[in-house]
């Protein structure tokens, strides 16, 4: 912990970075992102089991980018997000200092993206146990029952787009849902419009989602929408033997062609 604070202070005081993104504790005890520019403020930083939010989302935000070089506290999901963002040319590694951190709060020695890749490859990339159990439970249902279950969950959606906004991979400056000529997706937050929205989002993230669960965590009405993307990530992994966010050179599976791709879907 004190390592993190010292390191942050050093980076800011030496002007190596202009901003440090980590976690702090809010007044109700929740952990939340902290954006620190003053080396004297680094005492605010914390790292413990409350620090779950995927901070990579901020690296593509205009007002954050304007600061210049940034240091970011990176848990495994953040590192995987950085890989995807780098492979999609959304971040420049030279503008970034990544402070890899282990789940128990120890700083990792990750000087560049290739060392980060090695660390990711050695890590356990399986989904959280609770999520896998819920997915298994859902897959046991008949398609009609499963559809009904999702319909019921998604009918609660108020289309606040917290799922999209919290997702590092949802960086489009204009989301398809905001295009209304033509209107691809119904704007209405009714069951039909909600289903369309979440299916669109899941498809767009297939092969890019690193299963951090942030969309589900952000949802103010408690829809486990992360299970949709998680399931598709599992499918992509099964079909193409690829896991998103394991390399900064990897193009998205569903937007590239490979002569060896399966053609079993053609019947």
């Amino acid at each position: 912990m004190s390592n993190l604070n010292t390191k942050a202070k050093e980076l800011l005081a030496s002007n190596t970075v202009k901003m440090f993104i980590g976690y702090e504790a809010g007044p109700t005890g929740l952990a939340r992102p902290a954006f620190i520019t003053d080396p004297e403020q680094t005492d605010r930083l914390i790292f413990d089991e409350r620090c779950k939010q995927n901070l990579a989302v901020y690296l593509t935000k205009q007002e954050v980018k304007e600061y210049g070089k940034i240091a970011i506290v990176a848990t495994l999901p953040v590192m995987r997000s950085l890989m995807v963002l780098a492979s999609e040319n959304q971040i420049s590694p030279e503008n970034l200092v990544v402070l890899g951190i282990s789940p128990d709060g120890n700083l990792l020695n990750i000087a560049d993206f290739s060392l980060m890749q090695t660390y990711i490859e050695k890590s356990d990339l399986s989904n959280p146990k609770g999520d896998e159990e819920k997915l298994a439970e859902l897959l046991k249902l008949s398609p009609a029952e499963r559809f009904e279950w999702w319909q019921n969950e998604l009918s609660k959606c108020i289309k606040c787009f917290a799922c999209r906004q919290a997702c590092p991979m949802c960086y489009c400056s204009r989301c398809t849902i905001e295009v209304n000529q033509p209107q691809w997706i119904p704007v209405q937050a009714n069951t039909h419009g909600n289903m369309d929205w979440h299916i669109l989002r899941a498809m767009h993230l297939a092969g890019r989602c690193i299963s951090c669960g942030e969309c589900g965590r952000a949802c103010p009405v408690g829809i486990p929408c992360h299970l949709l993307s998680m399931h598709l990530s599992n499918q992509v992994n099964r079909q193409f033997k690829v896991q998103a966010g394991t390399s900064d050179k990897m193009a998205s599976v569903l937007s590239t062609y490979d002569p060896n791709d399966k053609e079993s879907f053609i019947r």
Partner: protein
Amino acid sequence: MESKLIRKESLEKLYGNLIADRKVYAPVKVSDKIEYRYNPSFREITFDHVRSTLSVKNLVFPKVENVLYFKNSKTESSVNDIDLNRIPEVVLWGAHPCDTAAFDILCSTFCGDIKDEFFSSRLEKLTVIGLSCHKRDDYCFCTSVGLAPDSSMGSDILLTLLENGDYKADLVTDKGSSLAARYPDLFETYSGQKSLVAEIKKKFNLSEVTKKLANAFEHPMWKENSLRCLGCGACAFLCPTCGCFDIQDETHGSTGVRYRSWDSCGFSLFTLHTSGHNPRHVQSQRWRQRIMHKFSYIPGKNGIAGCVGCGRCSSGCPVDMNIDEQLAAMENIN
């Protein structure tokens, strides 16, 4: 305002009478969340919750509402209005004072110079049985915006828990009195039994905040405090007083519907012009608008805060934007 006593058993009878001939919208606990549902059984209703996930504004301002139907042919277009007489009578049961007070604030938006007939028709058909709070949590701040856990604003009848488990029923409006008059056996004489009301400490001084905001448009705090804001609409959609909406036409062949749906000033698209120019092009400007609207513009226009202190924007925010913490800080800015 007359106060009556309603015993716990009588409350169940009252509820039974109400659901027999109309829609009653009441809070129930679903897993760890509080939701409002139409006509749940009396046993399902919760009486000791702090706040529901969503506010009850959808009763007067639904998340999607059809405004008109249209039909186009090669030579002409025709429009069919919505029949507002079909809006049903609804009783809102057990809403807390912050949520009921919000109807008055929404009214300042919807019932101004131009009366919004959709909103006002729904409000006219609504009878509100409020419930004072005897529980609170760290997100509550109604007392900082001029309300209290037992405010009667917006209620037709306000129920307050008494120490012995019965309820005091304040008959706040004529609507409330006439409802009570229909069930004279259930409403007894109230003789001053002690009530249980949560104690909610003041977190900031509203008039001081409003005064500071008047000169704070260019203050650096907007950016500093909103870097973590994700730009979603959770705060606005959970908020009982946010009334902004978007209007869309949805066409199927030659027929279509025009509807309005909730919108949020936190969205980047909210102020985007057709030219491509966006006067609020970054998130800090949108966050400033949200705060200014509730704590400077509405108080300036109507003399009341545009916020009821329900705490939903903070409790539902994925990144803990914590509004009362920010307002308390604003009280002390230079």
